[in-house]
């Protein structure tokens, strides 16, 4: 296994970097845009309706179909050719953004009004309520789900190989087609995902156990 890794280190490194770049961009778009859109959705009804509708669409249309639709038909319709890497960033970033926005929006809607009233009756200003009550509560309650969603996004990056993005899975397939030694190659792939996703899942489990917030 180590031999294969060393012999094809340039290929694996480039696949690894592509996957990491793809994942980081998807996470940034999803977390930054999703948090902002989720917060806006709780204040502006139209935004809430749009997020809810888009979330519904993302549930009923498989993400791979969305990716292919953006990669082929949409580009034909618009008469443009976009690098597959950026198509993947746009599609997975958008799916992440909508999903994060929906999680934040739902959590804000679930936040009992009584805590806001209680803070207000104690004399806290609107800004203090947002900073000390609303944001921490929404963050603590939505954080585990948002993190698990990012894990799913990393898994989604595998689909990018199907539109010729040279990410880690495609590199593994290419190397395998060159030397045909699937056991170590795909085991390497397993290790790659385990090393990244196992700590993430363990951290989420720990966070849920010790930072769980129950409305009482």
């Amino acid at each position: 296994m180590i031999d294969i890794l060393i012999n094809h280190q340039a290929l694996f490194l480039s696949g690894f970097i592509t996957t990491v770049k793809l994942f980081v961009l998807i996470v940034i778009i999803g977390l930054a845009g999703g948090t902002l859109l989720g917060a806006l959705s709780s204040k502006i009804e139209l935004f809430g309706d749009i997020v809810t509708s888009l979330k519904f669409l993302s549930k009923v249309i498989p993400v791979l179909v969305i990716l292919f639709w953006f990669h082929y038909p949409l580009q034909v319709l618009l008469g443009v050719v976009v690098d597959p890497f950026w198509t993947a960033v746009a599609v997975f970033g958008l799916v992440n953004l909508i999903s994060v926005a929906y999680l934040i929006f739902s959590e804000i809607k679930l936040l009992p009004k009584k805590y806001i009233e209680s803070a207000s009756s104690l004399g806290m200003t609107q800004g203090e309520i947002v900073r000390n009550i609303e944001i921490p509560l929404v963050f603590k309650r939505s954080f585990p789900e948002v993190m698990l969603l990012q894990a799913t996004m990393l898994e989604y990056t595998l689909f990018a190989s199907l539109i010729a993005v040279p990410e880690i899975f495609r590199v593994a397939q290419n190397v395998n087609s060159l030397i045909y030694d699937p056991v170590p190659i795909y085991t390497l792939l397993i290790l790659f995902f385990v090393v990244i996703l196992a700590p993430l899942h363990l951290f989420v489990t720990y966070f849920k156990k010790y930072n769980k917030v129950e409305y009482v």
Partner: protein
Amino acid sequence: MSKITNLTKSYEGFSVKDISFSVSPGEAIALVGKSGSGKSTLLRLLAGLEQKDAGEINFDGKIAYVSQDYTLFPHLTLIENITLLPKLRGEKSYKETAVTYLKEFELYEHRNKYPNELSGGQRQRTALIRALMINARVFLLDEVTSALDPEATKNILEMVQKLKEEDYQVIFATHELGFAERGADRVMFLDEGDLYKDISVDSFFNQEDDSKIKTFVENYYF
């Protein structure tokens, strides 16, 4: 002295009508009446949680509203709950004050627990300490004993009596007439949003002339 004059609020199918009363330092008023008589609405109006349609509310000092479900902030520990506002205001000796109250009300050993790890009585006492920590002079307590066992209710009663001794003004809504009799100096009997009677505790519980009050006491005093 705090003074409320002609306080009015109308909702669809219900209204609190033209209520006036005053409360002096060291005095406790019990708001009683059947469910839907307007007790909680009146307290929420006084707390500023509902907008009044008309009337004047002049409180002699800062107010603190404690609701029936305590509403401690669930992401903060007991000590964080009671020190949040003094900390935000940059007050100097709030930690020492908090420790004093926690010891006085037998909550010190629970200071690092979260609200869901506390009993109902402990949560209620925490809510009252939180109100004391903001230097409130007027306490508005909405059915604070409704979910408590007799022991915890007794503790709250002792707290109300202590507040009176220290010249705080207390207005509490309750279904428990025994609690009203022991904790209040005056009773305001609400009936369908009207202030039907505002009389002393003794007069209220020994009412012979007013059949409405007499029947209410007979039916609801356990």
